[in-house]
């Protein structure tokens, strides 16, 4: 049944294309195009990649903060949280679990929860062209942390900022291993204009996105 449906549709496509058999050379050309994807025309950057990344991210209504090293991350997160005596209740990607989080905080090192005040995740790349960050799913990097929190804090190494989306794909391809289950490119907070054309933030995802650029 399933096979029959597949054959029907493919036969219709081939008939529509004139039922022409591809030569070995033609197939090799198509394979080459898939294995070494060509890079087409891309928007010229107006600045060096890191500066343009920051400008664009801010234009997308992200807040951007720079820290010298990952050791400064916990104090940076503390500044984002409501003042004591409230005990922080946040989620952190397991990829960042080793950073010396205070023992008295309640931290979920796992998938996102239904109510999620703040999550901290690690991006694999930043894209200067659009000021976006690229996050990939992995056991240490759950996708739900990108969408469920009210505030999404994304940590990004300054060295990981690339010029264009194609450069981010190249990085992910070069990582080796299998292509990730989920890749999220995020360019700002969640929003909608479906009620009266008025832009409202947030819709279903984070109300704010805070980028922490780490210099080393």
């Amino acid at each position, binding site marked *: 049944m399933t096979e029959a*449906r597949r054959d029907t549709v493919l036969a219709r496509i081939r008939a529509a*294309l004139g039922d022409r058999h591809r030569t070995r050379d033609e197939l090799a050309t198509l394979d080459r195009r898939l294995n070494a*994807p060509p890079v087409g025309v891309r928007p010229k950057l107006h600045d060096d990649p890191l500066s343009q990344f920051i400008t664009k991210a801010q234009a997308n209504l992200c807040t951007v903060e720079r820290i010298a090293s990952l050791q400064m991350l916990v104090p940076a997160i503390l500044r984002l949280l409501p003042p004591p005596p409230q005990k922080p209740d946040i989620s952190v990607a397991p990829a960042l679990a080793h950073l010396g989080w205070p023992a008295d905080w309640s931290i979920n090192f796992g998938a996102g929860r239904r109510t999620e005040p703040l999550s901290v995740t690690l991006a694999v790349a930043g894209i200067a062209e659009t000021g976006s960050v690229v996050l990939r799913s992995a*056991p240490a990097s759950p*996708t739900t942390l990108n969408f469920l929190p009210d505030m999404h804090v994304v940590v990004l190494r300054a060295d990981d900022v690339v010029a264009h989306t194609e450069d981010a794909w190249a990085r992910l391809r070069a990582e080796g291993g299998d292509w990730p*289950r*989920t890749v999220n490119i995020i360019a700002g907070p969640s929003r909608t204009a479906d009620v009266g054309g008025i832009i409202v933030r947030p*819709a279903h*995802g984070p109300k704010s996105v805070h980028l922490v650029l780490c210099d080393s």
Partner: protein
Amino acid sequence: MLVNGKDFSSRASKAPADAGLQQQVSNLKTGFVAARARAVAALPEYEAMRDAGAAIKDHTLANLDFYLERFERAVVDRGGHVHWAADAEEACRIVREICTRTGARTVTKGKSMVSEEIGLNEALEADGLDVVETDAGEYIVQLAKEAPSHIVMPTVHKTTNEISDLFFEHHRRHGFSERVTDAAELIAQVRSVMREKYFSADIGITGANFLVAETGSNIIVTNEGNGDLTCTLARVHIVTAGIEKVVPTLNDASVLLRLLARSALGIETTSYTTLSTGPRRPGDADGPEEYHVVLVDNGRTKMLSGAFRPMLRCIRCGACMNHCPVYLAVGGHTYASVYPGPMGAVLTPMIARHEAANELPHACTLNGRCQQVCPVKIPLPDLLRRLRHEQWEDGFIKGRSRWGLGVWSWLATRPALYRVATRLGVQVLRWLGRSRGRIGHLPLAGEWTAGRDLPAPQGTTFHAAWAKRKRQP
């Protein structure tokens, strides 16, 4: 697909009197048209990108079997499943079978025009499933039991007041008993209702802006984050997509994504671009247990074979309708088809049958703006003209129109006679409008002159003016 393209003209004559609709549609005229123009002007490479986008789609379509098979292989290699559906009924049956096999009760849906085209919600609801649209706009039209009136902005026809009434009626059971009129408060209700739905969903259905043969991924773009939560939190993720959605590589998708965001919303990128590739991997803390892609033909191979192939380049940005004087005058619902506006006037007769949509190709002034703004350069006016021609050949055009066109073509193919007739026509029209310079009533065009005057001709015929101009040095 629910198509009622037959009574287009009777619905169209009511639209200009709908003040609410006119107000909402005017937002498109100003906001989106201007935003697109700004975004395009800010990108010197834009024209080159349009050519690149059209070339990528043409290359893919010319090798569609190859790329779909490669896409399938990449999905299967990563533990997903690909299903092929020749028509709407088969596509629905495939999804229904997955729901039955997995014991599903609730379905969350990201925006998918193909799912609307195949009537998926109705099919699943008939099986007793609870189906919820998660995109705020799609959710609103679902509650109102309406169809989207625009492929990108489904609620462009609805006022805030109407949405307020709708939520007041439906959200009491979710604990919202006050009537609210503020857009932010209304959206906060949607957010709260959907959080519960995402977590309780058995099946999450999304569309695909692109399918990538290189990796076996589907790509969706959203500003809300709804499709992204839909495909991550449900136990099973099903993608419904037309066969023309495949592109060779991620780099090709990047070119088209740049065109899509600028053409649809006048922005450089949406808040979210999400690639899903297969089910949850070992050790993953989230993600679906099953991943399925349903590839839908439903009339597309018919377009692939001939003159309508360029229509399959369409990336569903909606720019053609935002710039269409007919769409802007009558609104999306007048088309009574899932796909309104210029792209819909071509797609609907190809997907449904000619006779079910026989007025749609005529809802066009052939002004050409749609083709000018189309990010992948689809020659929409040519395709509409061709559809009209096919309708004539197939005998769908009847009565006064057929008779009138017959007279016209007889006359237009006899140049000498044509010149005499037009010269005479100009004189008669001038005489009719002799007192005011305008004609208030024309025989045989009473409906047209009932709403406006025809300006009387101000000189001679075009042929005469042209001949005179050529004689001048």
